[in-house]
């Protein structure tokens, strides 16, 4: 099974990089760009066929390692 995990900053946590990207886009002439936030996406191959088990295990991975829950939240997407 393949899975995709999104790790993004919690709302309210300042994202200097996202802000910098927004500025850069504006100065490149993309005037319609407003707020920008940057996060991570992690694609994993799992030797697991049970969706429930895969989900649970991914949540566990996020809590333990993939996200820093002081500032980040995560979302899990199972694929195929």
């Amino acid at each position, binding site marked *: 099974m393949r899975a995709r995990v999104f790790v993004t900053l919690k709302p309210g*946590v*300042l994202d*200097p*990089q996202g802000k*910098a990207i927004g500025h850069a886009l504006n100065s490149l002439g993309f005037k319609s760009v407003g707020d920008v936030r940057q996060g991570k996406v992690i694609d994993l191959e799992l030797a697991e066929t049970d969706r429930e088990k895969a989900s649970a295990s991914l949540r566990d991975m996020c809590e*333990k*390692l*993939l996200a*820093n829950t*002081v*500032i980040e939240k995560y979302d899990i997407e199972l694929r195929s």
Partner: protein
Amino acid sequence: MKCAVIVFPASNCDRDAHDAIMHVTGTPPQMVWHGDSEVPDVDLIVLPGGFSYGDYLRCGAMAAHSRIMTDIRRKAGEGVAVLGICNGFQILTEAGLLPGTLMRNAGLKFVCRPVELVVDESQSLFTRNYSRGERVTFPVAHGEGNYFASDDVLDRLEAEGRVAFRYAEGENPNGSARNIAGILNEKRNVLGLMPHPERACDPLLGSVSGRAMFQSLLEKLS
């Protein structure tokens, strides 16, 4: 004073920490491999700077799960002194031994330069040889030293006198909240800081203001 320096994969200030401790205290620390299950019986554990696990994912995140960390967590709980410098600080926050986290520098670039710090708290194992308000110069060298915590946590750190070092006004190299450069845990036996005291122990390198930290520890822990 018995001391251990932990070596993680791609620690790179382990030797610098070793030498500074040796230089100031006269006793060489033991180098302890991250894969070991136990830190020997010591008075001080140092988590050195570097790029443990390449700083991949988040700085310090993978090292915080090293085998040795279980014992470090236990010993910190028992009151053994723990000093995390730079990457060591990042590891301590990732391991939950210190609150908050270190985000990417506000300037988005790695920054290496000597910076002026103000000692904000001299009541600790680590800082008792400094006086409060004293200015010291330590080099910084990091890409992710921008200290972040919620306002409550920051208020509490300040109220409890747990901000050990701040960047002097106008010197903040990374956008860190309230100019915080180093903090103590609640029991005040764990210190994490981004600047490098071990690079400030030799007059040839421009500053010796790091020595007082190792001297404080030596006097208190011997």
